[in-house]
């Protein structure tokens, strides 16, 4: 329950399970951090039994996470209710993140606010919030390539998804919610990939110097979308993709009150009746909407095989007065950055996602999309480390969230995986109240958040 920026981290972590996607290693590990840098890393031989069993019971030590998509409300004045860069940093740190790419604030304002904050806040690039007409996208891809930039497109055709409240399917039918056709996302992904192919052909034909056109598709949520991206990657197109943690773990049955994770519901999707205490909670409204359980498993398969490079939080913190409204009027998004790791570890625990792929999608995958070169947990490196207790549980809510927004779909539910310690730039930026980590870092002023 402390966030500490007053001194460099120092700790000794023995008999943990390490996953380092940057260096391509995982297994039993001892880590020593001194004066904010990794002083010693000692990997043991991987156990003969499978890695899931080997990892069980050990604390998890991994590179601190990178989030490609969180948002702040740039239009608001600073009030006591809205998320600020500082509270976003606290929330991110609680979620195990050391780097967050943030939409909603102009770059200069973000840079000014982020100055001195212990978690790195990066400005988000311009993106197409809806797939544009082919000609415009091809032109944008070619222009961006000349500047070595990637074009980001949201996997959505707003003309088809406008007014939709839920994913088309049994849940939307039972709940009487306006359905979003799958074509809104699948068609958008298809058209974006076709534009990339066209731009690639043009660039080759014209012998353009410099980088080839590159596309990043954000907010993939349907199995069919994953399939299209996979095919494009196999054909050699330079496309990357991300998906929200809640599209990995949750499903449209949640809108009616189901609290099973997607992998628990895939053979018996929700068919009512409604749970009046949970039905239509605005925190379930996401963009894209929560999908059928089978689609969540498609997202998991996409993360596993690398089709989906990054898991994003989609953190979009609303004030109570903004979200305590009728479902059809509620804004999409919510307070999701602190429990993203819990949803991911839930998938790992259920066997639908390997730990290595999960951690890659939170670290090396997003780093590659950012175009950043990172080293992993190596002696001499400044410490960017997250330590998690995979066997722990916690309940997101007013007492445990660092974000000013309590608008989380997981409110009050016990979720797996508890972040014990987050170190960014060599300093502890989040420490759980009972971390059981032999942590000799200087204590800072406690913030009343986290577990």
């Amino acid at each position, binding site marked *: 329950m402390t966030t500490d920026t007053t001194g460099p981290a120092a700790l000794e972590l023995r008999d943990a399970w390490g996953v380092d996607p940057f260096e391509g290693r995982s297994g039993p590990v001892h880590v020593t951090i001194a004066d904010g840098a990794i002083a010693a890393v000692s990997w043991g031989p991987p156990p003969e039994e499978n890695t899931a069993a080997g990892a069980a019971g050990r604390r998890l030590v991994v590179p601190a996470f990178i989030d490609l998509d969180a948002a702040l409300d740039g239009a608001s004045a600073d009030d006591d209710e809205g998320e600020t860069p500082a509270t976003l940093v606290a929330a991110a740190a609680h979620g195990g993140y050391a780097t967050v790419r943030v939409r909603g604030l102009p770059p200069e304002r973000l840079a000014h606010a982020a100055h001195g904050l212990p978690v790195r806040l990066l400005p988000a690039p311009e993106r197409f919030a809806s797939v544009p007409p082919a000609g415009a996208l091809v032109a944008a891809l070619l222009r961006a390539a000349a500047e070595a930039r990637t074009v980001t497109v949201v996997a959505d055709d707003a003309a088809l998804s406008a007014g939709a409240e839920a994913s088309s399917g*049994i849940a939307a039918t039972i709940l009487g919610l306006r359905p979003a056709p799958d074509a809104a996302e699948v068609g958008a992904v298809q058209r974006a990939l076709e534009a990339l192919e066209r731009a690639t052909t043009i660039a080759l034909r014209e012998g353009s110097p410099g980088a080839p056109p590159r596309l990043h598709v954000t907010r993939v949520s349907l199995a069919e979308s994953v399939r299209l991206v996979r095919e494009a990657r196999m054909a050699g197109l330079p496309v990357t993709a991300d998906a929200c943690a809640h599209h990995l773990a949750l499903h449209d049955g949640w809108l009616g009150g189901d609290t099973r994770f997607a992998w628990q519901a895939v053979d018996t999707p929700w068919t009512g009746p409604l749970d009046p205490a949970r*039905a239509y909670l605005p925190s379930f409204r996401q963009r894209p909407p929560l999908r059928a359980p089978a689609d969540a498993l498609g997202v998991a398969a996409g993360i596993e095989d690398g089709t989906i490079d990054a898991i994003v939080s989609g953190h979009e913190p609303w004030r109570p007065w903004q979200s305590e409204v009728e*479902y059809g009027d509620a804004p999409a998004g919510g307070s999701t950055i602190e429990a993203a790791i819990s949803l991911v570890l839930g998938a790992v625990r259920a066997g639908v996602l390997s730990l290595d792929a999960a951690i890659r999608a939170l670290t090396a995958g997003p780093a590659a999309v950012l175009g950043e070169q990172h080293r992993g947990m190596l002696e001499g490196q400044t410490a960017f480390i997250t330590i998690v207790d995979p066997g722990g549980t916690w309940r997101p809510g007013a007492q445990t969230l660092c974000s000013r927004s309590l608008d989380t779909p997981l409110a009050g539910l016990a979720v797996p995986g508890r972040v014990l310690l987050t170190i960014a730039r060599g300093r502890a930026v989040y420490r759980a109240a009972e971390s059981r980590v032999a942590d000799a870092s200087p204590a800072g002023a406690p913030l009343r958040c986290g577990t």
Partner: protein
Amino acid sequence: METVPAWHDRHLLDVDTLTLEQLELIVGLAGRMAASRDSGEAPRVLAGRQLTTLFYEASTRTRVSFEVAAQALGAEVVTVQVALSSVTKGETLVDTVRTLEALGTELLVMRHARSGAAYLAARHVTGSVLNAGDGWHAHPTQALVDLYTLTLRLPGGNLTPSAAGGLAPSQARSVGGAGPAARPGTVTALAGRKVAIVGDVLRSRVARSDIWALTACGVDLWLCAPRALLGGFEAWARAVPADRRLTVTDDLDAALRDADAVMALRMQRERDAGPGLPSPGDYAARYALTSGRLRAAARPDVVVMHPGPVNEGVEITAEVARGPSSAILDQVRNGVPIRMAVLALVAGAPRA
């Protein structure tokens, strides 16, 4: 009249969670309410209690019958005219219901354009919320009226219509019931009866609540609409548990074939759902309930229903709507005893 049975839920948000036994209890209580009203001895179980109707969407039948029912039970009835309220100044639903509760409302009857609105209200009041319709989602009292009407009108029920069409004058006078001597049949007698709901099911909260209530009683329920209005109902029909019978089709003849009862739904012009929808004329040509279609397919003693208001000439002809098969006015009349029953039940349920 004997005392009102104990009830578990201070809200009535939908009928989806109600068992066969609970539906039987409501129908039975409604019958006793109708009888007691006819004999001038309606139990004043809401004496001293304030009931407020809060309708964000238009209504004649539902709102008026709730108000009549509440007054029959002795409640003080307050009607909020939403168009003249601070809703027009942007006051939120949550603030509105909390304000009404602060002004003494214990029973809030609400209708709203958004699915789930009643659930939001229920989470913010300590009193009762009765859902009079939330968007496309639910209309629980209408489904209960439909159930009650079926138990009365289907063979095995205790009321048959007069030969002269509509109801005989003596029956028309006993507003709120089927006549002094009539009692509803049991809902279990509906098991195996074929009921077809024809029309704009996609946007129909009546259809959704009817699905829950009627299939719980073993009705062989058919939904029929143009393909563009069937939405995800085919998937729902494939997923219902084995003890419920739901068939979805765009073939009107198949839906009407040997039906015991047919319900027409209004084409919802004011509730937008998107492209690909038939015009009223197209719809009428292919799906209107006409005497000819009913004669050709349904049982001779088929009961015809409609939740109202009726677009004569679109989903149903005037001839059928006003003819001897029609139970439409029965449904209207039955709205009062059903609403008396649910009000009495929720008013006696444990508070927050």
